[in-house]
């Protein structure tokens, strides 16, 4: 084996290319590309804002030391789960700092909702977090019912809990596939989508819509269960655990998967609370906080379940936590179907409601964490202020905290384990 003499500098092929290009340009009588007035003038600072930094933190991220450079991940990148941009400061292949740049999908849904009637608001929140549409509608429904002073009939509450748990099952199932996809395995996502389509078809049978269900109403739900929904539910229930088991066996014991998730992105419970991380990501760090148990809404005080937690706090624990929660949701669905009462599914509520002036807060446990709505009424037909707290928006703050010192390729794997949805992040 030959030893490389450290004194001999091996030229970088990219640098050789550049030198060769400069030589050819000079021979042809052209300006060097990076010179003032050359065609690439200014391009050696790609990614650095063309203005003075506005904050201390921005100065820190965008000031480069010797050997560091900025790399843009996104906005159009399959692993950013939507339209998001991560400015990654790297030294070689090691991440030094991360700055998430958001807003590429910002639609101003809060402002739209403040200009819509209470019933219409429930349709506007659908495309926010498009993988947990039922949860998106649940929180405003709770808040508006508090404002208006009504209560949904018991059967409506049971149907709500049923569709919400079904939604959680397919959202968590997709996360398993996306995590494997970002690590490099294509097959699990295909199986995840097969399983997800079964649930989505079921939910479209009950709500009439395939993805943006628009199923909840102030004072109940839009439709009662029907034969198609129930038969699909029965078929799905008969094999869902087998399907889950198959997908799980394909991923969990895979050596590459374990190598890229175990000990990766380890978040302690105290840090997670401080960063506002909620939901499965928080429970994977060992904190037993679940809104369904902590502050029960709907019918969750009648159901039997425990808050599942993991100890690891790494990507692997977050993945295992999702699988445990899918099984728990199926257990909850069994209980809900057993106990579902007969009766109406909608209270008598006019199409345009004018609640008395007041304030209400409704929070639900969405697949990504604490999703809450704060609504203020001034007595008019539309909410005076409509505020949504989206869990993936807040959880995203963990990425700059976890990534420094890790490899660039692991940024995607850790981000996928947090399961953010950019529709919710950007509102």
């Amino acid at each position, binding site marked *: 084996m030959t030893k490389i003499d450290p004194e001999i500098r091996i030229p970088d092929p990219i640098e050789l290319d550049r030198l060769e290009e400069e030589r050819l340009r000079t021979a042809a009588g052209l300006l060097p590309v990076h010179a003032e007035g050359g065609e690439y003038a200014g391009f050696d600072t790609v990614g650095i804002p063309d*203005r003075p930094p*506005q904050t201390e933190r921005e100065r820190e991220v965008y000031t480069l030391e010797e050997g560091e450079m900025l790399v843009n991940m996104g906005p159009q990148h399959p692993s950013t789960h939507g339209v998001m941009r991560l400015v990654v400061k790297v030294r070689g292949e090691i991440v030094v700092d991360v700055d998430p740049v958001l*807003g590429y999908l910002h639609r101003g849904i809060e402002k739209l909702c403040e200009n819509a009637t209470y019933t219409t608001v429930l349709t506007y929140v659908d495309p926010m977090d498009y993988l947990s549409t039922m949860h998106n509608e649940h929180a405003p429904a709770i808040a508006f019912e508090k404002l208006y002073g009504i209560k949904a009939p018991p059967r409506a509450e049971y149907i709500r809990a049923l569709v919400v748990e079904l939604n959680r099952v397919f959202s968590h199932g997709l996360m398993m596939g996306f995590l494997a996809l970002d690590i490099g395995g294509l097959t699990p996502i295909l199986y995840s989508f097969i399983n997800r389509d079964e649930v989505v078809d079921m939910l479209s049978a009950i709500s009439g819509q395939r993805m943006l269900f628009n199923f909840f109403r102030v004072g109940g739900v839009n*439709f*009662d269960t*029907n034969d198609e929904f129930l038969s699909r539910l029965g078929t799905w229930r008969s094999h869902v655990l087998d399907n889950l088991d198959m997908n799980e066996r394909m991923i969990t014991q895979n050596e590459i998967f374990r190598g890229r998730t175990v000990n990766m992105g380890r978040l302690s419970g105290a840090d997670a609370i401080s960063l*506002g991380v909620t939901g499965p990501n928080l429970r994977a760090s060992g904190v037993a906080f679940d809104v369904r148990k902590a502050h029960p809404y709907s019918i969750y005080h009648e159901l039997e379940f425990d808050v599942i937690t993991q100890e690891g706090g790494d990507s692997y624990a977050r993945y295992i936590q999702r699988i445990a929660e899918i099984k728990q949701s199926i257990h909850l669905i069994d209980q809900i179907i057993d106990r579902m009462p007969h009766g109406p599914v*909608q209270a*008598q509520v006019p199409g345009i409601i004018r609640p008395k002036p007041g304030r209400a807060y409704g929070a639900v446990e969405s697949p990504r964490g604490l999703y*809450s709505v704060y609504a203020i009424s001034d007595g008019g037909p539309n909410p005076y202020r409509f505020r949504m707290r989206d869990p993936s928006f807040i959880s995203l703050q963990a990425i700059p905290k976890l990534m420094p010192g890790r490899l660039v390729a692991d940024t995607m794997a850790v981000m996928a384990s947090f399961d953010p949805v950019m529709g919710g992040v950007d509102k």
Partner: protein
Amino acid sequence: MGHVRRPWPAAHALGRGRPLSAPAPALAGALIRLVQERIGPDLRDLWTDEDTVEFTIDGARAVDVLTTLRDDPDLDFFMLADAAAVDYGVDAHFEVVYHLYSAKHPAAWLRVRARVDRAKPVLPSITSLWEGAMFHEREMYDMMGIVFEGNRDLRRIYMSPDYRSFPQRRDFVLPDDAADSPAHGVNPLERPETWDLTRFNTAPAITFPPSEDRADAPAEGVEGGETAADKSRPR
């Protein structure tokens, strides 16, 4: 689908006005007494409904009050559930609303409403208490123009860095607001000949801190949202 809707029951038959969930009243009562005892003179307008305890404080005292709520072993509000800003109108005030949760008082969300002067919307930052308040505060700055002192990354988060308005303020008019347009109920976006775009050219820049203090302030004589250094920004 063969769906038959059952006749609707009257709302009063479904318990209009009945609480949604039934918290133990003793717990909420204990929380109210504790809060009154520990926060004392800062606390105003204590109010409660079926699952919320709320009170108003002065914006300048936000960090002290929230530190007490978080660190007092009897209160132990360890989780910041939400932080949002509300604009109560041009001639009124802003409000920053914090929702907190404590495992010791699970029956109630605690809502702390911090009042902020509209003419000088400055509030101490709570990022020292919860790091996760960073994105909440950046969003409030972006959408409402409330400045949080002590926040070391107070940039716009959704809008571009050279954007100059605060879209969630009540005096921000939506461009496609039908009632406001000459199209009279027809969506003006579908009728470009009716677009009145002069207000976008003549609108004064709303910035806080005042634009002359900012490094990215619009240059004299530059119109239409361009900043002094606004070349083809690579951002």
